């Protein structure tokens, strides 16, 4: 369990994290999404006690990270896979971390095997590819078999096999009751891994909801309709309060009503319908809508800035969409 309560971090005039509150719960993979520069890494550093928040508190298992006597047994983290010293072998790197937290040598061998690094354990890290360094970082995070795991952009630079491996590992860890918190700037990636998403932009919370809710009815979407009498159908639909837009290839994008109602309406008036497709919003679109709102704040002065909507609402993205 990770709990942030009203965390703000300022670097001079820049507010990297702005009054951020959320809870990351065990037993599921929580994705931490935001564009580059949104404050994800700073937030993770604050959780790990590396950066001190200007105000607010970040707790892991109810305690500040800095108060852990042996933190690697509580929280495993990987912020930057290339943050290793090339002159050291993979085994020595892991051994140094193991002894620092009273973890036995046997566990070093275990995590090397777990991450598939045992054949290169005695090689110096400077000869590792970024993908191998990523595995080494994950091995280090797993050393203390911690109940909480924090990964910053874990699949960056990994090949397809590596990505699948990490995804599987995260899902397994969550299924075993671990708290898994992973950041990414790619919605598509998170959609396949995370059960729950926390989205931030410019350091503010934009959304905190189950992944399913980002694709569910509340997230928007439309119905695509094709008809030889598109004009007549459009008038009827608009009269019923639905919004209709003409797509590039002559189809109608209908929102504000559902497919069944459109079909019934067309049948009642004898209007032929050639296609009727319910389209879920793409996660990318939802995400862009959400973070687009945060980039819009950028154009405003700090005084004009409207407070970021709190909590579960997906509304901000839709409002922006409607406003366009």
């Amino acid at each position, binding site marked *: 369990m990770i709990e942030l309560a009203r965390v703000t971090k300022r670097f001079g005039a820049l507010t990297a994290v702005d009054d951020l509150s959320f809870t990351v719960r065990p037993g599921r993979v929580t994705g931490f999404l935001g564009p580059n520069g949104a404050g994800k890494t700073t937030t993770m*550093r604050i959780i*790990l*006690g*590396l*950066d*001190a928040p200007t105000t607010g508190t970040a707790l892991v298992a109810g305690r500040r*990270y*800095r*108060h*852990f*006597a*042996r*933190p*690697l*047994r*509580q*929280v495993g*983290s990987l*912020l*930057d896979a*290339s*943050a*290793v*010293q*090339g*002159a*050291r*072998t993979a085994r*020595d*790197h892991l*051994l*140094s*971390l193991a*002894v*620092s*937290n*009273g973890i036995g040598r046997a566990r070093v061998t275990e995590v090397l095997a777990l991450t598939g690094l045992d054949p290169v354990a005695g090689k110096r890290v400077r000869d590792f590819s970024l993908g191998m360094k990523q595995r080494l970082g994950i091995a*280090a995070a797993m050393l203390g078999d911690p109940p909480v795991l924090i990964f910053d952009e874990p699949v960056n630079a990994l090949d397809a096999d590596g990505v699948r491996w990490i995804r599987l590992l995260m899902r397994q860890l969550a299924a075993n009751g671990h708290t898994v918190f992973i950041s990414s700037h790619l919605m598509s990636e998170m959609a396949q891994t995370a059960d729950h998403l926390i989205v931030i932009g410019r350091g503010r919370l934009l959304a905190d909801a189950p992944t399913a809710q980002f694709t569910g009815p509340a997230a928007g979407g439309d119905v695509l309709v094709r008809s030889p009498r598109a004009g007549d159908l459009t008038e009827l639909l608009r009269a019923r309060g639905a919004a209709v837009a003409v797509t590039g290839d002559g189809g109608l994008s209908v929102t504000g009503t559902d497919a069944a109602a459109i079909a019934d309406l067309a049948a009642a008036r004898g209007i032929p319908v050639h296609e009727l497709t319910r389209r879920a919003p793409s996660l990318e679109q939802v995400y862009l809508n959400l973070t687009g709102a945060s980039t819009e704040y950028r154009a405003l002065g700090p005084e004009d800035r409207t407070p970021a909507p709190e909590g579960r609402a997906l509304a901000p993205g839709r409002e922006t969409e409607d406003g366009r």
Partner: protein
Amino acid sequence: MTVASIRPARTRVPALATRARDVLAFEWVKLRSVRANWVTALAAAAATLGVTVIVARTAAAVPAHQATGSLAPLLASFLASGEYTILPVSVLGVLAFTSEYASGLIRTTFAAVPHRWAVLAAKAAVLGGAALALGEVLAFACFLVAQALLSGSHLGLSLGQPGVPGAVLAAGFLPCACVLTALGLGAIIRSTAGAITAAVAVIYAVAGLCLVLPAPWKTDIGRFTIGFAAYQVMSGHPQRGLLPPAASMLVLIAWPAVALLVAGAVLARRDA
């Protein structure tokens, strides 16, 4: 039975001694697992011994009444270590923090041991201990080698003579004082180039500058520098106008102590 008792290992806070041992082991593994550190120490030792032989041969050729200054029998034993041990060892001291800042490993270090004073103390203990061991071994070895060569000219000293053991011990302590000063500077400055420049300034350049200052300042300021203090503790012939050997020893302790205290305060306050 409480829920916490399911995972006793996680909830029990280890004793302070255990945690100290762990963080010392952490820094020791990091120090010993970089081959360049061993190469540097061995190369420094070889160069120091080699140059000591050259200095001692030169000193042995000097008539007894002219054997003063750096060619005086005692000082000639330690002349080589001034550059060939202290400089490379000080660079290692600087790198202990700056290399971790450069690679980003420092964040892994502080994630493993969030108590930053503990990290600093462990690095100081491990590096200082290694430098002290290397320094003392080299000081005695260089003394014995130099005196063996000087004894041919009947200039050789023995460890039994008054003042000699203290001078040799003090000479062996110098690399430790310098490595700890450099360690502190590395933590404060974080960039390798900047910290090495600062370390060279503190260890060498400040004393060098004082040598060219006009009369009262040369000694008034100079006696607080590492260079002048080092001369006082290991020459066997302390100069008047400078601090006596015991006070000079305190100067040699004060420099690293101040550097480490400032470093600790800075590390504890600053974001990693």
